[in-house]
C-alpha cells in the first residue's frame, strides 16, 4: 500500500471544543474513505462519547484517527488516551447502565455498539480506548 492511501490525524483533547474538532476530523477521514453518511455519523458520535470521557474523567488526553485503505477494505481506527485515574473495572464499564459519574453511563457501551470493535486498556495514570470500524466496498 502506498502512503497516499492512509490518513492520520491527532487532536489534543483539552477543552470541549476539541471534542468537536476530533469528531469532525473523524468524519472527514471517514468521508475520504467513502464510508456512508450513516457510518460517518456513527463514527463521529462514538468519538464524541469517548473523547468526552477522556476530557471529563481523564483530565484531558489525545485522540488519534487512522484511516487505512487496502484493496476493497477500508478501516478506521480511533485511539483515545488520557492520563487520568483509570477505569476501575473495565469489564463492567462495557455493560449498559454502568456509570462512574453523572454522564459517563452510556459512553463506552454506546460507542461499542456503534463501532465494530472497542477495546479498553486502563490502569492508574493511563487509559487507552481503541475502536475500529471496517467496511468492504465492491464497486
Amino acid at each position, binding site marked *: 500500500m502506498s502512503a497516499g492511501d492512509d490518513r492520520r490525524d491527532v487532536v489534543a483533547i483539552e477543552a470541549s471544543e476539541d471534542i468537536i474538532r476530533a469528531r469532525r476530523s473523524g468524519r472527514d477521514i471517514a468521508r475520504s474513505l467513502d464510508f456512508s453518511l450513516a457510518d460517518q455519523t*456513527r463514527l463521529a458520535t462514538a468519538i464524541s462519547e469517548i473523547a468526552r470521557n477522556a476530557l471529563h474523567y481523564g483530565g484531558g488526553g489525545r485522540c488519534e484517527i487512522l484511516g487505512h485503505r487496502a484493496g476493497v477494505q477500508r478501516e478506521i481506527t480511533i485511539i483515545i488516551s488520557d492520563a487520568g485515574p483509570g477505569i476501575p473495572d473495565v469489564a463492567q464499564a462495557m455493560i*449498559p447502565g454502568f456509570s462512574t459519574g453523572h*454522564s459517563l453511563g452510556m459512553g463506552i457501551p454506546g460507542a461499542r455498539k456503534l463501532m465494530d470493535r472497542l477495546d479498553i486498556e486502563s490502569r492508574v495514570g493511563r487509559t487507552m480506548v481503541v475502536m475500529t470500524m471496517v467496511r468492504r466496498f465492491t464497486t
Partner: protein
Amino acid sequence: MRIPILRLGNILLTSLPPDITDEHAERLQSDILERLDQTAVVGVILDITALDVVDSYMARILAETAQMTRLMGSEVVITGMNPLVAVTLIEMGRELTGVTTALTLEQGVASLKHQIAARDGDPPEDPVDECG
C-alpha cells in the same frame, strides 16, 4: 456567544447551532428556563436541524431541558432531528423517552398547540389525539 431565543406569540423558539459545545448547551438550558420565568409563554421548540452529531451528553441535555420546562408548566417539542442522528441514538440504546418530537418546525408548532389545547382542556383542533 449566546444562542438567541426567539419569541413567536406564546412560544419560545431556539435553534441549536452546529458543533455546539457542552458549555453553550448548558448555558442555553439555563437561558431557556430564565426566559420561561420572565415571560408568559406556554411552549418551547428546540430545533436541532443543524446538529449532525447528537451524543449521549447532548441527548441528556435535551431530555433534561424538556423535563425542566415541563416542571415550569410549559410543553416542549424537539424538531428537525437528522434521520441518521436518530438511527445512531437508537443503536446506542438512547431513546429520549418522554420527549415529543416533530420532523419540521411547522409540524412542531402544530404539535405544541395541540398539546397545550389538550392540557388546558380545550378540544383539540384536529381529531388526531387517539393515537398520540
